[in-house]
Structure formats: structure tokens, C-alpha cells
């Protein structure tokens, strides 16, 4: 293990005072390997974990790696992924939100009730919009209590967990179950893109990605800063293309890409942009890393916190609508069960730290994929909920253990 601090894996770094020059792909690979040995594992453990999950379940039940199950998996992971994206914002602050489950329930119920075709129904977009706005408003409320009154987020959202569960019950009243008859809402999780549309969207996404990478590279070169090797850019675009093509091809063998996949992609792109490319996102990381430093730098720490709670509850509301769409109904149990714990576990398994300042939106996607795969696979094997929870719990424990060990290794290498 090297004793001197080496540049971190994700950056295009050369010594600050050296003559700027582009790295070769070999140097880049060597640096990545050195980072890996020093404990900067990135997404590698999750990818390895997913491969193991696929092999194990396929060996037990040959239905696991089929096109039909793959499409099911996308639909099954959609709600957890959406909610976990919001959780990432909260974890980045070093806070917690225990209310997301029932906030998603409240939003699902609001949308379902407003869209009951009883003559008083509102336009579809108004119904969905109202549910999302309600979610954001709940988040602002949580944020205000946490920042202005100074109650810890754990307590506020624990109260929210109880309180919003109550609101779900009150809203449903004695209806018991509300069947959703609005085709647009049902379509999120139950309608599919035509094969041709899916391929066109993939091509557009690839072109966009390549364009963004090339523009960034040109800007760096123009300013005389070291840029990543061309070959690496090409590999990235090709890599995304191959993965995307497999996803689209496999899904097209069955029903196709579900519309909810587009919602996930949209949310992923928007929130990744917000976190990595805007001042607000930078301030979120700063508040999570060192709130005092952020305050002294003139950042309004309270506003950042409130905004993050609003984003989290907004994403919970979106997740609630997706869940209602998948189940085609809402009932008194909306937002309950394993949703809350699966969402938080997804963000953590994906590599977002519980202690603030470290994490990405992609951790929500990867973590949710792990959890949904296990849930799906154990379901195929006909195992009970009990087994599912035990296995998911063990995976969560393993993920956090790997994270702790790699961080300890980073500290010893002077990188953390």
C-alpha cells in the first residue's frame, strides 16, 4: 500500500504544478488499480454482488434470468428506487427520514381518491400533481420543524411515520380499498414502450451522454487542464451502449420497456445533475461534510436542509404513485410494510454513507436493484417473507461492513 496520498480514482488528476498533459489509458488504469487496493472500491462490490445473486438464483430456478422476469424486476424495483433517490439527499446531510413509507402512501391515496371516476374526478395531471405537491409540502413541514425548532430529524420523521400512517387511514376511511381506474396512472407500471421507441430513446440517450462528455473534455482542454484519455471516453459511451442495448433487447423479447423506466431515467438524470453540477448540490455535500464550514462560507444551511427534506418527500410521493400504479389500487396498508426499510437499505447498500457527505444518486439505483433481485429471486423459489427479510438484512449488513472495511483501509492509506 502506498504511504503517500495518491490522486483519487474518479478525478482526472495530475500534480497541480506539473505541466498539464493528458493521461494515457494505461496510467488511468494503474491509478484506478492503486485506488482499488487502497480501499476505494466504488461500485465494484455491488456489481460483483449482483453477478453472484444472478448466478445463485438462476442455478436454483431457471425462471430468474428470463425476459419476462427481467421486465417484472424493473417494475418491482421502480418504487423503491424512486424513494431511495430522495433518501440519498437526506443521508448526504447526515440526517434520516423515517416517514417516507407513509408519505408515499399519503400521495398514492390522494392521487387515487382525486381520480375516482365518480363525476367529481379532476384531470389526471391535476390529480398526480396534487399528490406530488402534497409530498413536497410534507417535506417542507418536516424541514421547518427540524431546522427552525431544532427537533432532531429522527424524532420528527418518527412522528411523521405514525402521523402520516394515520392520515392514510383517515383518507381511506371506510372504503377499505380504492381501485384505480385511471388508465394513465395504471399505465406507468403496466404499459410498455414499443420496441422501436425503446431503441430510439436509447440512441438519443447515448448521443446525449457522448455529447456531454465531449463538451466537458473540450472545455478542459481549452483551459489547459488535463483531460481524460479519448479511449476512456469512448469506452464509457460504448459501455453504456452495450448495457443499454442488452436492457432494451431483453425487455423487447417480452412485453418491452415499461413506461416507469422512463420516469426512473428522468429522475436519475435530473437529480444527478442537481447534485453534481449545481451550487445547491455542492452545498448539500458541504453541509453533510462540515456544517460549520458551510455556515462560515455563507451557505444558508437551514435552506439546504429544508430543500433536501422537500426533495425526499417529493420523491416518496412519486414512489407512492408508482406503487399505486403497479398494484392498481390503494388500501389501508398503503406505504406500509417493507417500503421504508427497503428504501433506506437501498441507498445504504448502494454506497451512500449514513454519516453524511458521501453518496450518489446511482447508489439508490444499484442498491434497489440488489434488494429487488433478492426479493424477486426468493419469491420465485417460493420462500416466505421471513426468509426474504433475513437475507435482505444480511446483505445490508454485508454492504455496510464492506463499506466500513474499505474506509478503514482508505484511512490507513491517507485517503479518507
Amino acid at each position, binding site marked *: 500500500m502506498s504511504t503517500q*496520498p*495518491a*490522486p*483519487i480514482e474518479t*478525478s*482526472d*488528476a*495530475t*500534480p*497541480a*504544478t506539473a505541466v498539464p498533459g493528458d493521461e494515457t489509458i494505461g496510467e488511468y488504469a494503474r491509478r484506478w488499480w492503486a485506488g482499488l487496493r487502497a480501499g476505494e472500491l466504488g461500485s465494484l462490490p455491488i456489481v460483483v454482488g449482483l453477478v453472484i445473486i444472478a448466478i445463485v438464483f438462476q442455478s436454483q430456478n431457471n425462471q430468474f434470468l428470463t425476459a419476462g422476469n427481467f421486465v417484472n424486476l424493473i417494475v418491482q424495483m421502480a418504487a423503491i428506487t424512486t424513494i431511495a433517490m430522495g433518501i440519498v439527499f437526506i443521508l448526504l446531510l447526515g440526517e434520516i427520514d423515517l416517514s417516507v413509507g407513509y408519505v408515499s402512501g399519503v400521495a398514492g391515496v390522494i392521487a387515487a381518491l382525486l381520480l375516482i371516476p365518480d363525476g367529481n374526478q379532476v384531470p389526471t395531471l391535476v390529480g398526480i400533481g396534487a399528490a406530488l405537491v402534497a409530498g413536497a409540502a410534507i417535506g417542507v413541514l418536516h424541514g421547518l420543524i427540524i431546522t427552525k425548532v431544532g427537533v432532531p430529524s429522527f424524532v420528527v420523521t418518527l412522528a411523521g411515520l405514525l402521523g402520516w400512517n394515520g392520515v392514510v387511514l383517515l383518507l381511506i376511511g371506510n372504503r377499505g380499498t380504492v381501485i384505480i381506474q385511471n388508465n394513465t396512472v395504471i399505465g406507468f407500471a403496466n404499459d410498455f414502450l414499443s420496441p422501436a421507441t425503446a431503441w430510439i430513446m436509447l440512441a438519443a440517450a447515448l448521443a446525449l451522454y457522448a455529447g456531454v462528455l465531449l463538451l466537458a473534455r473540450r*472545455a*478542459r482542454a*481549452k*483551459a*489547459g*487542464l488535463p483531460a481524460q484519455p479519448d479511449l476512456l471516453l469512448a469506452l464509457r459511451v460504448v459501455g453504456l451502449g452495450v448495457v443499454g442495448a442488452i436492457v432494451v433487447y431483453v425487455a423487447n423479447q417480452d412485453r418491452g420497456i415499461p413506461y416507469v423506466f422512463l420516469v426512473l431515467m428522468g429522475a436519475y438524470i435530473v437529480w444527478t445533475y442537481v447534485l453534481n*453540477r*449545481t*451550487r445547491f448540490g*455542492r*452545498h448539500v*455535500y*458541504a453541509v*453533510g*461534510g*462540515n456544517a*460549520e*464550514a*458551510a455556515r*462560515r*462560507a*455563507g*451557505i444558508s444551511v437551514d435552506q439546504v436542509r429544508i430543500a433536501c427534506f422537500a426533495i425526499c418527500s417529493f420523491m416518496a410521493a412519486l414512489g407512492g404513485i408508482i406503487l399505486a400504479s403497479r398494484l392498481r389500487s390503494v388500501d389501508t396498508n398503503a406505504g406500509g410494510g417493507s417500503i421504508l426499510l427497503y428504501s433506506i437499505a437501498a441507498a445504504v447498500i448502494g454506497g451512500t454513507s449514513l454519516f453524511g*457527505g*458521501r453518496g450518489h444518486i446511482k447508489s439508490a439505483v444499484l442498491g434497489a436493484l440488489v434488494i429487488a433481485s433478492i426479493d424477486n429471486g426468493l419469491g420465485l423459489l417460493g420462500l416466505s417473507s421471513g426468509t426474504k427479510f433475513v437475507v435482505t438484512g444480511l446483505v445490508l449488513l454485508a454492504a455496510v461492513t464492506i463499506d466500513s472495511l474499505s474506509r478503514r483501509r482508505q484511512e490507513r492509506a*491517507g*485517503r*479518507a
Partner: protein
Amino acid sequence: MNDSPILELRGVSKAFGAVQALYEVDFHVAAGEVMALVGDNGAGKSTLIKCIAGIYSSDSGEILYNGEPVSIHGPKDAAKLGIEVVYQDLALADNLDVVQNMFLGREETTSLRRLDEVDMERRAKETLQTLSVTTIRSVRQTVAGLSGGQRQSVAVAKAVMWNSKVVILDEPTAALGVAQTRQVLDLVRRLGEQGLAVVLVSHNLHDVFEVSDSVTVLRLGQNVAEFKTKETNQTEVVEAITAGKLSKIPGQPAAEVVV
């Protein structure tokens, strides 16, 4: 060195309840001058720099900037005048890289509210180069991986990159080893050579004599002595720190002092 002070305090007093933290303190620093501010624990060094930085407002007395009276009511007022403070705890976010820390709270953006990473990285590098900070291998390295001296360099670079005129360093070498102390002292001297007014708060007289041009001694909230570093020695400064003549005995009204 220009002799007319860029920053001057006249008769600044500050009390916290019954405790008179500062009593009629005069203090000044000129552009290109490294002014050391020394004194025992509780002498009022921290209170004085917090008055300059706008974290406390003084009870009486005036602050002159370039000869003009100014009122500093908050850190933003101080920053607007070009006064930057590097506190002992540095206020860096460990999870952010060097560039991100240097621009924290003042990020540059382009269209679509997009962060202008390229320009920020270029400017951060330039600033580090002007200060001859060569020990930081990559400006895209997280601050967590830096040594104490490197962190101090980043904090200082962050302070000077905003066209600052006065930089106040609070115990910059307190937690550093020998080699890193050397780095930071070199950096302090370069700041003075580049025409900035530097206020160096320190306990360590060895450091003070190595880099400062002048020394102001505080004792029990009062300015008891001021020396040109070249015309004094450690014994004289120590004597001022421990037994400098007070114009007012703490706890008694000024009028009753019998000298």
C-alpha cells in the same frame, strides 16, 4: 512596506457582561506588513480578531480601513472590505476536494446554473501557484487526504483568492510538526511579500520572530506594547506578555488606577 496602515483600530472596547475582554485597544497593520499579535491565554487576541472579522461588534472605538471609518457588522461586511480570517479549525469540508473547498459558498456558474468546474479548477491552481504551494499533488484530491500543513495552505489560499487585502491567521502553526510549520511560515512571509497585510496570531514566539515585521502585545484585554521585530528580543516581548504595564486594573474603574 507602506507605513500608512490599511487597517487601524482606535480605542476598541468589548465587554461580555462583567468581563472586560478588550479595553481601549489600538491596533494597526499596513499593506505588506506581517503583524504578530501575541499575548497569554485570555489576553483578548481571539476577541480582537473576531471584532475585526465582524463576528462580534465592539462596544466603543472605531475601525478605520484605508483611513476611512467603517462599520463591520458581519463576516460578509469584512469579506467585502477584503478582510479574510483563517480560523484555527480551518473550516474545510473533508469530503470535498481542494477546488470545491476553495470556492465553497462562492461557486462560479455558467448557463443552466451549471457549476463552472473548469474555470474554478484553473483559478484554484493559479492561486496555489502564486503562493508557491507545491506540495499538493492534485487539486481534485479530497481535503481529508491532506496533511495538516497542506490543509493550512488550502485554507490560506481560499482566503487570499478573493482579492483580499488583509489576512488574519489564527494560530496557523499550532498543530503542526517541524517541516509543516516551515511550509506555513514560508507561506506567511510570501503573503507579506505580495503586499497583503497579514495579522499572525500566535503563541509561539519563535515563529513570531521568524516571520513578523512588528509585534503587538495584548495583556488582559489591553494593548501593552508594540515592537518592531528587528529592534526587540524575546525577553522583552515575554516581559510585556506577562508584566506589561496596564492603564486600567481589571475589575476597577479606570479613574481609580494609581500608577
